[in-house]
């Protein structure tokens, strides 16, 4: 039984169920790097280029953290997950970055996943991997199980970090209780608690209801994406834009916080479109938050605090106005 290492980074946060189930199905041992911590960030900074985006930097750190402990690293080259759309080019080239920049790398399993032109079954995509591992006979079953597991992604609770530290003033204001906030961003910005300073858990523990794209019907995101004026050709960006529009138009949330990794290519442009959507829906408060390795926790909290206070105030006034009218 070989030990397969998977960095807890980038698309792992979107496809963890698929990947882990698949390798278990092949009867291999799966080793996922631990949740991001300071040490991993330091490793990442050490083994990557200064000018690359934080999520890729962290991914390098995750790889470095487990490289010596596994027989194989699973770093799929996910070029495209649907027709006529791409993922980010940095994700495609990530295995090369790892290979050439991090010392002591074991053998890399890097199947190319490219559904731009035609749909390729999951089984076909990963045949090469199963062959390398000498597990072709288990491929069919493993693939089927993996797909079934992944279909639950939208319902699956993202793992939460237990010991959240609090800097928020007086551990949150009472007026925030009951607010509904949507967090928008790439899965690795939302579900990696290190990169966003536990924002999700902190807000939830103060009685704020947190929604993400996971709370929207996958089919409604698809429908919305189909009628975008300017559909982005990066799948993640397209989903984000569609999701943002649904949140802005609905009464689901009081505010939206868009988390952007500094130096993220697609998000820099997507922000223009989401900003412009926000102008069309002034009743939903909106802010964007740029994260990089130098962002301080206190700075993020101050901005989020101001944002929440403003929403709470607005809700109060609108209630007063409504009462006055009556």
């Amino acid at each position, binding site marked *: 039984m070989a030990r397969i290492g998977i960095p807890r980074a980038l698309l792992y946060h979107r496809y963890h169920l698929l990947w882990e189930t698949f390798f278990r199905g092949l009867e291999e041992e799966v080793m996922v790097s631990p949740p991001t911590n300071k040490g991993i960030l330091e490793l990442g900074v050490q083994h990557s*280029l200064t000018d*690359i985006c934080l999520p890729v930097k962290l991914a390098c750190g995750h790889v470095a953290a487990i490289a010596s402990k596994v027989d194989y690293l699973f770093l799929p080259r996910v070029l495209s997950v649907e027709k006529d759309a*791409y993922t980010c*080019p940095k994700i495609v*080239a990530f*295995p090369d970055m790892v290979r050439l920049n991090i010392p002591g790398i074991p053998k890399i399993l890097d199947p190319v996943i490219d559904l731009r032109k035609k749909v390729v079954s999951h089984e076909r995509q990963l045949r090469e991997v199963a062959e390398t591992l000498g597990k072709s006979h288990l491929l069919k079953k493993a693939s089927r199980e993996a797909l079934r597991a992944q279909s639950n992604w939208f319902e699956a609770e993202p793992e939460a970090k237990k010991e959240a530290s609090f800097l928020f003033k007086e551990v949150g204001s009472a007026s925030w209780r009951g607010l509904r906030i949507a967090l928008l961003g790439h899965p690795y910005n939302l579900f990696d608690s290190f990169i966003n300073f536990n924002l999700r858990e902190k807000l939830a523990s103060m009685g704020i209801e947190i929604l993400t794209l996971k709370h929207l019907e996958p089919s409604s995101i698809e429908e919305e994406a189909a009628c975008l004026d300017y559909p982005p050709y990066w799948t993640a960006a397209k989903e984000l834009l569609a999701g943002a529009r649904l949140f802005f138009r609905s009464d689901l949330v009081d505010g939206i916080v868009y988390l952007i990794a*500094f130096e993220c*290519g697609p998000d820099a*442009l997507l922000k223009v479109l989401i900003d412009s959507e926000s*102008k069309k829906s002034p009743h939903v408060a909106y802010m964007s938050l740029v994260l990089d390795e130098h962002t301080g926790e206190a700075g993020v909290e101050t901005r989020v605090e101001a944002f929440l206070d403003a929403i709470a105030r607005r809700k109060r006034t609108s209630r007063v106005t409504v009462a006055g009218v009556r």
Partner: protein
Amino acid sequence: MGPLTVAIKSIFRRLGQEIVVPPPTSHRTISLGARYAPELVCMPFKVTLGNMIEGLERGADTVAMATSHGNCRLGFYWPAQEIILKDLGFQFEMIPINYDRPLEFVGEFRRFGGGKGWKDVLPAFMFGIRKLLALEELEVLCMETRPRERESGLTTRLFRKWQAAVDNAPDSSTLKQVRQQARKGFLEARAESREPVARIRIVGEAYMMAEPNVNFHLQQKLGDMGVETERSYWLGKSVVRAIRLDRKGRREHEKAIRDATPYMRYPDLCTGCQSIGETIQAVRRNFDGVILIMPFTCMPEVLAQSVMHRVSEDHGIPVLPLPIDEHSDEGGISTRLEAFVDLIVRRKQLKSREALAGTGAAHSARAFGRGPTTTERLGAG
């Protein structure tokens, strides 16, 4: 006025249309663009946004913007720019021009042609391309002449003169004459006794490479330091390649991508690999160093940059990555360039001393023959 502007102006003039030429890119352009663009976007977005604003201020009602079907940001420039400009209150039609797709590209020009058919549009287009190629040849001549010029400033004067001549050339035969005379003029501007101190190839992101006003006049700066430069990207060539007239260029391009394979296993999926292949080509063609010019946060070039140190080690060629954004300052760039040129000149001297001790004669003979050969190549082209 850049080569592209001259070419496009010529196309429209032939079609009997009026076109608003935005003022040349200036500090104002860049700061306008930077003010209204999202902070984290790459620099070409900001500069072209600035150009658009300045064009619209002069009364343009249509904006044409280059786009592509790749996976980097270029293909999504125009929607974001359209939204920003409309928010600013401008009214216009935005036309994305995809020059990866040859027929579509010419077809777009037909739309502006005021009801003219292919029969008029095609020759106008080809003439525009010819002007573009002529202007880019002038730039090549500058890059070769400047480090050898007889008196300082002569190259720049010649360039201005011949650029105006190309712009004014009414037909192909005049243009041909202008090109011949320009070649001769530049050749005469060289001093016999001067040889460049080094040869540097410039690779990287196309826009930054081609726009002297945003790359701090990189070519000229290096030329003034006595360096002969060459660029891996020329708009004219890439258009001709896209409309499939340039077989050789195509092959070279494909070869560069193949050369990059040891560094990027699936190079056709990552555009940055081109810079890697072009760096390896530079070694084969005896360049002394490579400058990787890129906008800060450029997605493909950041990938190239992240493996470039390995390319440089493996092939023994110094590479200077030069990320630029609107906060870059000219002084800092100059200092880095000077240090880099120093480094490669010293390295070169060391090498030639070693070579002299061994097979010196053959080496210097080749260096000697280099000047005339490059000119011949241009003469043929």
